[in-house]
């Protein structure tokens, strides 16, 4: 996923002389391709995230196409007001990349972990939000975001879980990573880092698994694809507040549809308590890969999906 991101950034620079990749002194190896192929289109602004967003807005106002890169804990969290007033207000074409979303920086602690990026950005007018799970979802997200005139955010995890897709996607629509057929009344729905986990669970239980990686505007047909299910199991490495489950519930309500029963597996309302591996950090929220396998087995034993 990161090598794809690095290539997308370098390729954008080669295609568009107005493309500029801006970083607040983060992303050491990520920018190697652009720095070797289009060095003048990479700008390390310095460790100043607030000014970084303002400078990007100023560059966008003078005809540039800035990409603003940061860790999700900083971009968008630390600079939410700059994104709102400097970029969204004027619908400027700035692409924000929030890297390392979720708990993947487990050993660095809560300052570098981010469970609330999607929730923070959802209310901002004109902001598009993507949460891809693998290189192909990332590529579709990036290319669509770059083709849109306003601001976009791509949540990038760093979990290095297996890719779900084996071929490029032609759209950012929601899609079934696995669909055993019409008998199931339960569907597993996921975004970003959890889609790989959801896909594995779907295979284990013979249930369909829907990947939703364009959160705003919510990918077309998402509700249509979910309409046949009575119950959903939502997996997200994000706060319960304002992430995928919230987005789906809001969409059902806005469409006047009955909200299906939802079992939500998300990050809990606390910070990391002890240090440890990524899987350990997830386990503090009962969200390690093993925890999820166990919880889904228990849940589905009590409420089979057929």
């Amino acid at each position, binding site marked *: 996923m990161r090598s794809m991101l690095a290539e997308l950034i370098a390729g954008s620079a080669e295609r568009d002389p107005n493309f500029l990749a801006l970083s607040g002194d983060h992303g050491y190896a990520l920018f190697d391709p652009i720095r070797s192929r289009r060095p003048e289109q990479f700008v390390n602004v310095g460790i*100043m995230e607030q*000014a970084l967003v303002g400078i*990007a807005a100023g560059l966008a106002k003078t005809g540039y196409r800035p990409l603003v890169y940061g860790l999700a804990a900083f971009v968008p969290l630390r600079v939410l007001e700059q994104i709102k*007033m400097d970029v969204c207000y004027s619908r400027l074409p700035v692409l924000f990349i929030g890297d390392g979303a979720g708990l993947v920086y487990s050993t660095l602690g809560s300052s570098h972990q981010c469970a609330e990026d999607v929730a923070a950005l959802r209310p901002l007018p004109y902001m598009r939000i993507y949460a891809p799970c693998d290189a192909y979802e990332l590529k579709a997200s990036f290319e669509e975001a770059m083709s849109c005139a306003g601001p976009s955010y791509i949540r990038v995890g760093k979990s290095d879980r297996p890719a779900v897709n084996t071929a490029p996607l032609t759209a950012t629509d929601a899609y079934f990573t696995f669909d055993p057929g019409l008998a199931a009344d339960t569907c597993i729905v996921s975004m970003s880092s959890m889609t790989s986990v959801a896909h594995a669970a779907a295979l284990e239980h013979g249930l369909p698994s829907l990947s939703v990686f364009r959160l705003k505007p919510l990918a077309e047909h998402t509700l249509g694809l979910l309409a046949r299910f009575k119950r959903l199991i939502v997996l997200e490495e994000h706060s319960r507040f304002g992430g995928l489950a919230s987005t789906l519930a809001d969409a059902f309500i806005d469409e006047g549809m009955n909200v299906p029963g939802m079992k939500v597996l998300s990050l809990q309302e606390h910070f990391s308590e002890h240090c440890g591996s990524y899987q350990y950090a997830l386990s503090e929220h009962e969200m390690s890969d093993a925890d999820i396998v166990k919880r889904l087995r228990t849940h589905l034993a009590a409420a089979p999906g057929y």
Partner: protein
Amino acid sequence: MGGSAPDFRPATLRRHVLHMAQSGNSQHIGCAFSLIEIVSVLHSAVMRYDASAPGVPGFDQLILSKGHGVMALYAVHRELGWIRQSDLDHYFADGSLLHGLCEARIPGLEVCSGTLGHGLPIAVGMAYGHKRRGSDQKVYCIVGDGEMNEGPMWESMLFAAQHKLDNLVVIVDANGLQAMGTTGGIINLEPFAAKFEGFGFSAVDCDGHDLAQLGVAMTAAEPGRPHAVIARTIKGRGVSFMENKIEWHYLRINPQLMERALVELDAAEVAS
């Protein structure tokens, strides 16, 4: 253009501000009055711009980072015919055009700066963009001395110096007062010019109500460095009972005070 040449005389601009403030029963009169001469000189003598319309590409740009002074810019834009007299007459009326703080949707205002510490970083980005393109467009940015408490101001100054943005001119409206007291008593940033110089700018102090001094100071930039003008101003300047009175950040004008203020502006104009 409103049919006649724009009148950028300070007394004219202050009359517009008072009229708006009375029409809208608005605060922030003192904030606008301290930078009247600054916007007057910028538009009459310093900036290269196309007066026929706001935001014509290829010309110099002005960013008001201190959004609380926006009535001063509305007054200028009224003279340029960029906004209508009726927009001033109906200031703050339901469904009216102009807000009480600087908003980017108004052509010619460029940024939202009601929240402080935003305008200068954007101005720096614009100056950097022009510089990258090899354009000789300049970006002027008016900041408040109180606003200089904000961290992103200093962050973006570091960037401006690093990238040798000699097409950037920062004008500090140094009126010495911020919302709840004196700048010296809250966060003392003096000596201002030395701080800018320490951050890689050239910097000059001047009388911020002296048109000639301002004109010289604003055009004293040196190649290879961004430039700062510390314009020593008086909050509420031009109306004696408002001058240096922190309450005129907030107070609204009534008909009696309006009459006194207009008499003072007329008298000062005759005297000059």
